């Protein structure tokens, strides 16, 4: 499938830019790193505002509870590290120090999912969405591309309360249609269609769009939803799309058992009975490899979305 012609940009660069601008606009912004400031690009903020950046060393638990203390004293805190170390390693600190007291801490992570590549399973967390989705009071955001990352960072800074925002390591295709608007908690329709709804999150949104183009050639008219806020899930958009198109496919770079697709499945089971299929990483740990090779091996390509679409169309009783 061809997204080779799309421009690819770094989410990390756009996040760093948004954070720097926030730092200039607002004195209440404080940033925390855990010996990964050069990788997660909080170093950009640190360079201009060294007094408002604390690098706590390799001590993520400490970082999360320090973030809580700063937030309890009126600061808007961005705590940033790799997704594996910013969720799983510190789950209880987030739960107890941040989510329970509903403090204004934004946990912004990079290097989520298998596109991490060579570092392998230890670093390729595929359960972070599940962990953060499970927490009361937590908002979970997974931007689809670099420009949306920029907008989402600005939006979560304006929102008061705990947020988890997830990015990958690799550059991602820029989707022209998501560039202008971002509203926390709202899914956006990137492409209209009546036969099936493809719901993507993160890097899989671009794959959904490519799949939709291919499906047109078969006479299947797919709607594409960008579900960039996973919690709270945009139930209205979801139910509307399910009722209007009668079939749903979800796609995410995350464990398929516990991620966005699982959240969608639960809602559909209760509110709109339509055939659905989840595309994502099966219930296994990742491994080292080239990120594109891994995306193929673990079933995260546009072809996988097309196959899943054929399956739901068959069950819907459509053309196939």
């Amino acid at each position, binding site marked *: 499938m061809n997204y080779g012609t799309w421009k690819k940009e770094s989410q990390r660069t756009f996040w760093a830019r948004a954070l720097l601008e926030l730092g200039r606009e607002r004195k209440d912004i404080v940033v925390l790193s855990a*010996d990964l400031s050069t990788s997660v690009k909080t170093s950009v903020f640190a360079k201009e505002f060294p007094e408002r950046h604390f690098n706590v060393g*390799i001590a993520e638990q*400490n970082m999360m509870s320090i973030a809580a203390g700063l937030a309890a004293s009126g600061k808007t805190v961005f705590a940033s590290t790799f997704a594996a*170390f910013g969720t799983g390693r510190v789950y209880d600190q987030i739960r107890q120090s941040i989510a329970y007291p509903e403090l204004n801490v934004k946990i912004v992570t990079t290097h989520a999912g298998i596109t991490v590549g060579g*570092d*392998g399973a230890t670093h390729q967390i595929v359960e972070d969405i599940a962990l953060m989705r499970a927490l009361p009071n937590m908002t979970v955001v997974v931007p689809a591309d670099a420009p949306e990352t920029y907008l989402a960072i600005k939006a979560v800074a304006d929102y008061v309360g705990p947020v988890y925002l997830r990015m990958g390591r690799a550059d991602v295709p820029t989707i022209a249609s998501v560039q202008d608007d971002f509203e926390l908690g709202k899914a956006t329709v990137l492409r209209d269609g009546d036969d099936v709804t493809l719901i993507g999150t993160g890097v899989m949104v671009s794959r959904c769009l490519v799949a939709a183009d291919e499906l047109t050639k078969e006479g299947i008219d797919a709607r594409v939803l960008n579900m960039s806020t996973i919690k709270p899930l945009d139930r209205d958009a979801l139910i509307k799309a399910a009722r209007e198109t009668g079939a749903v496919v979800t796609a995410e770079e995350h464990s398929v058992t516990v991620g966005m697709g699982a959240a969608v499945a639960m809602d559909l089971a209760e509110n709109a009975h339509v055939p659905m299929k989840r595309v994502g990483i099966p219930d296994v740990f990742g491994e*080292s*490899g080239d990120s594109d090779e891994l995306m193929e091996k673990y079933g995260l390509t546009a072809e996988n979305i097309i196959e899943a679409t054929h399956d739901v169309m068959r069950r819907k009783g459509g053309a196939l």
Partner: protein
Amino acid sequence: MPKHSQELIARLEDEALKIRRHLIRMIYQAGSGHPGGSLSATDVIAALYFHVLNVDPKNPSWEDRDRFVLSKGHACPAWYAALAERGFFPIEELDTLRKIGSRLQGHPDMRKTPGVEASTGSEGQGLSVGIGIALAAMLDRRSHRVYVMVGDGENDCGQTWEAAMAASFYKLDNLCAIVDRNLMQLDGPTKHIMSLEPLADKWKAFGWKVLEIDGHNFKEILKAFDKAESVKGKPTVIIARTLKGKGVSFMEGAVGFHGKAPNEEEYEQAMIELGGEP
């Protein structure tokens, strides 16, 4: 006659050089990896695998073998190279590092690689795993020893100190930790990111026998391992002063080569410096 002969030292130096050449080639071919911390750890790892450890490459799960855990898992290219040179798996396999389907993962995987005793990569956990292995040896009345290498940056992690407290509380004299004190972590020098000093005093206060050595001097390394074995009633930590990137001039002390592969030109230069064929 000194206990450690000149021949032994020369052989270890030779093995270390081979390991350094392997790991540079492996990381270059993989296009990613951590040369700095692999090079600083190489001499201690060479001493362990070519003199200290009682292991059997033909029988990697022999119950009475000594165990080595690399808590700073990102330095595994040095470990893999030592294991291959020691005969745990074919040397050719080293070139599959980080490639899809390889037994040599970017961070150690005990289920995939013969000789790898613990899965690590998230910093700060290996010493605790080592305590578990040492406790099991105690329960089973076995006399093998357990060695754990931690990065100095790993001394930032709370869990390192939870483990330090537990190991001396359990009087684990079958456990020996090595701190690869290369004075650097990912973002820069440890003294700028999270100062550790007085590090020896901290370990002493946690109930450990502390030895401080030059981690690139085989005489001192071997002496320290002998000493550690003779200490009774408490665990020993060897604080090995090392140089991050040791052996490749432009990687020595360079923050930039913590987690970056050399490019073609750098690779060729590094191989020349290590006396190998590019």
